[in-house]
């Protein structure tokens, strides 16, 4: 077995993930390499969600009975855990949403309805990048169409990095918000946060960072990032689906208007008007995803017990090995950085002229789960003149043997369509 420096004890760790024992298609062991789409769930998280439903299930913030108090304590306890996980200065800066898309849409809508100095209107500009997930493109297109604000973006270099050569023309005095991904979901690129944040701060623009592909894989410190908002989702970091996070600086959350109205987000309501609860509740209308938040709290505990530095080191070793092995496959071209430097563990590639859909199908037959298509980042495919990619993405339980299985699988694909 291949030994690489920095690997976690995956043999022990994989026992926490019952699904990884699955055997598919007449005896093929599951090789799960679709972690950028969703991660698998450890027993600890499954148990926390089960226990919540078996023992504590109630609605939060509105009962005086024992279960309601327990459910509230668990839900708010999850907020404390997430706040500590991202080094938030205050727990009240952590808003629970249903996913990262909702978090990003929430910011776009806060700004669309905001008063000065935050208001986005026809005199102002919005900045994103060409490597964003659709969830960090479409909300800004909508905001741009509705307000008349101009939408601008950073292009990409040939080797899958952001082209910041024209940063002073892209981010200007007119820029109200700069929203970009910390790690590309399609190419794995880790972006230079500091350079972008510094320019945004110089012109007084707000910064929103999409950390969906970062929070699961590396230490995330919202204070060190110096952003104004950070969005991520639970199901890519060992948590359940249906729970996302938006972190925002407290003064902004106080100043900005709510988006969704309903129960829980109010202070008083009369037939003519209402006043709102303080953040984070101001942005959490209706019954929240309680069990999912509890599950996310358990996921945060799980990841913390392993250590985010250790996870990052493991993934770096796997990524280094994977980019090297993949480039040995004849006809394979990596879309994105070809070294493990400043890169995450999502690796997209094309294999000769074999369509990714066919690549994925033949890999699936061998028990290997990858993602094929444009990965909700179609502009990246257009940029590099390809219809789609095959993407293998690794996580804390991924092994060098799984990289080997992928490489062997790709040989099989080549033979099949050769």
């Amino acid at each position, binding site marked *: 077995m291949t030994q690489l420096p920095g690997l976690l004890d995956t043999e022990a760790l994989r026992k926490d993930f019952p699904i990884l024992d699955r055997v598919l*298609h*007449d005896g093929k062991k599951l090789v799960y390499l679709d972690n950028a789409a969703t991660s698998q769930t450890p027993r600890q998280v499954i148990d926390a969600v089960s226990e919540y439903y078996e023992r504590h299930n109630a609605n939060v913030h509105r009962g005086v009975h024992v279960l309601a108090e327990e459910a509230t304590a668990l839900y708010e306890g999850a907020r404390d855990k997430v706040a500590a996980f991202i080094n938030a200065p205050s727990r009240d800066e952590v808003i629970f949403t249903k996913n990262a898309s909702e978090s990003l849409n929430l910011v776009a809508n806060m700004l669309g309805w905001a008063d000065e100095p935050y208001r986005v209107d026809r005199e102002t500009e919005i900045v994103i990048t060409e490597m964003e997930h659709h969830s960090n493109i479409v909300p800004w297109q909508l905001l741009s169409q509705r307000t008349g604000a101009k939408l601008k973006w950073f292009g990409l270099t040939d080797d899958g990095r952001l082209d910041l050569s024209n940063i002073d023309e892209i981010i200007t005095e007119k820029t109200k918000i700069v929203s970009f991904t910390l790690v590309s979901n399609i190419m794995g690129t880790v972006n230079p946060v500091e350079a972008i944040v510094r320019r945004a701060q110089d012109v007084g623009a707000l910064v929103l960072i999409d950390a969906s592909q970062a929070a699961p894989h590396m230490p995330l410190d919202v204070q060190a990032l110096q952003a104004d908002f950070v969005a991520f989702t639970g199901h890519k970091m060992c948590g359940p689906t249906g729970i996302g996070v938006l972190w925002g600086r407290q003064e902004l959350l106080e100043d900005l208007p709510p988006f969704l109205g309903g129960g829980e987000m109010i202070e008083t309501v009369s037939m003519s008007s209402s006043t709102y609860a303080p953040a984070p509740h101001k942005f959490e209308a209706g019954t929240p995803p309680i069990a999912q938040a509890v599950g996310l709290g358990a996921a945060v505990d799980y990841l913390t017990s392993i250590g985010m530095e250790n996870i990052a080191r493991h993934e770096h070793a796997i990524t280094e090995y994977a980019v090297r092995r993949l480039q040995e496959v004849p006809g394979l071209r990596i879309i994105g950085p070809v070294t493990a430097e400043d890169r995450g563990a999502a690796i997209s590639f094309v294999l000769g002229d074999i*369509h*990714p*859909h*066919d690549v994925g*199908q*033949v890999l699936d*037959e061998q028990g290997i789960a990858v993602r*094929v*298509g*444009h990965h909700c980042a*179609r502009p990246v*495919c257009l940029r590099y003149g390809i*219809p*789609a990619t095959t993407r293998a993405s690794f996580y804390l339980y991924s092994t060098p043997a799984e990289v080997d299985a992928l490489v062997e699988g790709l040989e099989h694909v080549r033979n*099949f*369509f050769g």
Partner: protein
Amino acid sequence: MKLDSMYQDVILDHYKHPHGRGLRDGDAEVHHVNPTCGDEITLRVKYDGSRIEDVSYEGQGCSISQASASVLNELLVGKELAEAQRIQATFLELMQSKGRIEPDDAMEEVLEDAVAFAGVSKYPARVKCALLSWMAWKDATAQAMGDAERKTV
């Protein structure tokens, strides 16, 4: 083994040697995409009255979507519209069968090479690939016939 039921030789052959590929003169043109995987097709239909004179197409996509367009061209060109619609409906029925229809001789007579796609119907994610060109043809035909109707009124 299961894989061979999807990637029949007939399909791989159409994929590698497509029939009627390339855009030619037409009465109507449509562009259809499969948003989940990025398959795209531009398709034109040319009618001589109610007879299909040509179906020409250009696109990019997986072997299933490309082979399906090739089979469509081979099957439908030269047919009367009513018969083509019957073939399309039969193909749709087969593709939506989730692998439950085992094509019989009667179906094979209607679908010819297109029966090879029976195995694809077991893969929900790929059914859309197989149907892409057929939906495009239906759409283009509706447009061409609509235009023709408007012209005669």
